[in-house]
Each structure stands twice: as C-alpha cells, then as structure tokens.
C-alpha cells in the first residue's frame, strides 16, 4: 500500500499530460467557449464586415448586456488560467521540452506527409513540427487577444497601449482576427483529436507515461500498472 501511495504521488508528473495541464486545458476550453460565444454577440451589435453577422442561435446572450456580462466574466477565467498555464509551462520546462527546437525544414516535411496522408501519429508524446508551430502560434495569439482586449476595454486608462494599434477600430480588428485564428485552430485541433481518439483520451486520463530527461526521474508507470 505504501508503495502504491508513493507511486501515485509521482505518477502525474510522468504522464504525457500531467494533472495540472489537463485541468488548465479544460478550464481553458470552457473559458474560450464563453469568450467566443459572447464575443460574437458583442460583435453583432456593431458588425465590422457587412457580410458577417453571427446567427443568434450560436451566440451567448440574448441581449447585448448578457453578452457583455459573460465576456467580462469569462475574461477573468481565461486570463488567470492562461497565466497559470504559461507560468507552469515555463517553470516546469514543459514548453522547452515539447515545443522546441522547431525545424523549418521539418515543418515542410510534415506538411508534405500530412497532405499525402502519411503522417505518423502512433507516438503521442512527440509533437511533430507542425504541431509545435500551431501550439506555439495559438499561445502567441492568445497573448495578443488579451493585449488587444485590454486595449479595447480600457483605451484611455491604457492609452499608451491602445495608441500602438493606431486607432480604436484597429484594436477591434486585431481582436477579431485573433478570435478568427483561435477558431481556425480549434477546428483543426478538435478534428485531429477526434481522428486520433487516443489523443483526446490522453487529455482526460493523462496519456502514456513518458521518461523525461529533464525531470531526471524514472518512469513510474510500470509500478502503477502492476499495482493497479
């Protein structure tokens, strides 16, 4: 029993997706859902593109004020959770291990393989170059959507920041394109997660055990599997 308890204590750190990552991932999923749904409602009040108005059935909030209420509630979850995730990723070395180095040549090779349906995805623990670019990219977009959101929310109190965008409508544009990029990411991300269900499962259960050089600890998975 003592052995089991000890094993379960170190267990999460040796998984592909340690528990904190899984918790933050799903909190983020909820926050993004709230932010995009309510953001579409807010967008509809003064559309930027004459051809684009989000159908009432897919926006959050029947009235403008409800959309605003959700947006300025969701922002706290999105920002605080996002900050925690960034701190975690940097402090534990997860970003360094999983996302770097990125080889430009490998990016093109991976795209070629994907287009010929020859992409291998039997090893969930290793991100290919395109995954690395997409995950890093969506994080940068996530930071930019918060910065542009801050400038939109407080263009006078943070006028130094808002001025960097040139005009108030430019801030809306940047915020909108960041949202579009995130939506595009989600489409790809969710499609691939459904095509490779074990990746979706990994974000729920933790996924396969990995042997991280950086942590210097031995994989604990065999121990747990035998005792479990």
């Amino acid at each position, binding site marked *: 029993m003592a052995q089991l308890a000890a094993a379960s204590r170190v267990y999460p750190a040796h998984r592909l997706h340690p528990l904190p990552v899984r918790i933050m991932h799903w909190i983020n999923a909820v926050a993004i859902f709230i932010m995009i749904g309510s953001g579409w409602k807010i967008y509809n*009040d003064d559309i930027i593109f004459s051809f684009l108005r989000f159908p009432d059935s897919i926006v959050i909030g*029947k009235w403008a*004020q409800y959309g605003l*209420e959700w947006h300025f509630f969701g922002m706290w979850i999105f920002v605080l959770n996002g900050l925690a995730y960034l701190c975690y990723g940097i402090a534990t070395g997860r970003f360094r291990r999983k996302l770097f180095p990125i080889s430009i040549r490998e990016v093109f090779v991976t795209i070629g393989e994907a287009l010929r349906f020859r992409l291998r995805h039997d090893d969930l623990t290793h991100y290919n170059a395109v995954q690395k670019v997409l995950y890093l990219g969506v994080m940068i977009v996530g930071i930019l959507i918060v910065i542009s959101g801050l400038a939109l929310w*407080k*263009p006078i*109190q943070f006028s130094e920041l808002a001025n960097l965008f040139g005009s108030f409508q430019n801030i809306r544009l940047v915020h909108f394109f960041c949202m579009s990029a995130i939506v595009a990411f989600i489409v790809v991300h969710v499609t691939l997660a459904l095509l490779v269900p074990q990746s979706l499962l990994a974000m729920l259960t933790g996924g396969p055990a990995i042997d991280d050089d950086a942590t210097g600890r031995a994989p604990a998975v065999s121990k747990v599997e035998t005792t479990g």
Partner: protein
Amino acid sequence: MAIHIRTPSIFRPTTPIDQSVLTENRKLVEEIGRRGFLRGAVSLGALTMLTGCDVSEIDSVQKALRAVSAWNDGVQQTIFRKDHLAPTFSPSQVARPPRFNAYYPIGDVKPLDGATWTLELAGRIGDKRPWTAQRLYELPEQEIIIRHICVEGWDYIGQWSGPNLGDFLQRVGADLTAKYVYFICADDFTESIDMPTALHPQTILATKYAGAIITDPFGYPLRLRTATKLGYKNAKWIKAIEVTNDFRDTYWSSRGFNWFAGI
C-alpha cells in the same frame, strides 16, 4: 407538507385523506419529487436550446453575472488614473454632426425649451438654487476634442465645450468627498458617475458641439461629456444633478450594463 381544507367542492372528498399515508411513504414521495426536479431541469435545458431562451436570464445566473460586473466596477475604480488625460484630436478630425444614440430612435426625441428649462441641484450641494440656461451658458467654457466610444463598438471624434464639471461642483459648494454624481434627464433617463470621474479634467457639462450650441438630438440645452467613460454614461437633456453617497441603479445599470463603464 400541509394540506389546507378549503371550501367544499365536488372534486374534494368530504372526509380528509388519512395523513399517515404520507409519513409511511415519505421515502417514495421524496424520490418522486427528486425525479420530477431532474425531469424539470432536463426539459428546461431542452427548452433553452429550442426556443432560444437564454441561460443568462435564470435568476441565479444573472445574479452571479451581476456580482462579477460589480466586482469589475471595483477593478475599474482601482485602475482609474485621475490625472491621466485621454488623447485629444484636431478640429479637422471632428465628425459633423455627431452620431446619435439613445434608448429610442432619433425621431422620438422631445426637444426642450431653453427659455423655460432650469437645472435643479440636489443632495450634498451647498447652493441649490436652480440654474437657467442663460446663466449656465455664461460660465467659463472648456473645449475638449475627444473620442466617443460606444459599448456597441463604434466610435467618432467629437468637439465639445461647456463648463468643467469639477469647477461647477466647486462653484455650487458640492461635497467633493461624496461618492456619486447623479444626472436626472428630461427623457426619464438616469445616469451616475463616480466622484473621481466627475472631477477628471476632461469631464464637462457640454453646451456646444463644434463651436455651435448643441442641437436637440444631442442633448440641448445641457449634457454630460466625459472622456473616460463609454458613450451611454454621458447623460443628455440633464434637468437635475444630485451629489450623494447612496448608490442607486441607473437606467442602463438596472438593465445589466456595467455601471462604472470606464474606458
């Protein structure tokens, strides 16, 4: 669970039901209650999907969202920089005429008669004598060319002038340590701002737009124009100003829009 005996009815037995049936089957009765509740919750959820009813309208959800909005008021109060000036622009960038917005269309605006109109003062103000338009228009003017930002997302640059609100409050002996300044408008609209915003150098009681007296749709004879709040906070057709420490909901805040509405 009490059973009230009301007037006799053909649908009600003359001898009451033996109450022991309830205590004997308490567990079963409660179970039914719970199931019914679950069923209700499920169908409510389904209804929400089908009719476009909004989860935001559920009392507890709306209460929680309003609580977050109130928390956001506090955050905005904290980050408010009382001496930080909003960017100003040149007269060539000014939109003419300004853009109209109210809780009704422009055709429903009821013009006020400047000759009979007075500005009433109330609350924590020393000199509460009402002001005529003529006297107000004789006060020293301040001009600001600032961006108007609507909560909907649009903006324009406007050129406003009129007495500085802080100077005016001082002139009438208002308690500048009070928390709120309320504006009661001729169209039954109400708005209020926090005292630091009222005393901000770019908060004025506007009487002119682009050098000419403001026209009816834009708040003649007196409106508020502050550089640090969303458009809807800028009360038009003001008929009374009250300085107070009591928070009361305003036209838009009572409808779920954020009260502080700082920008």
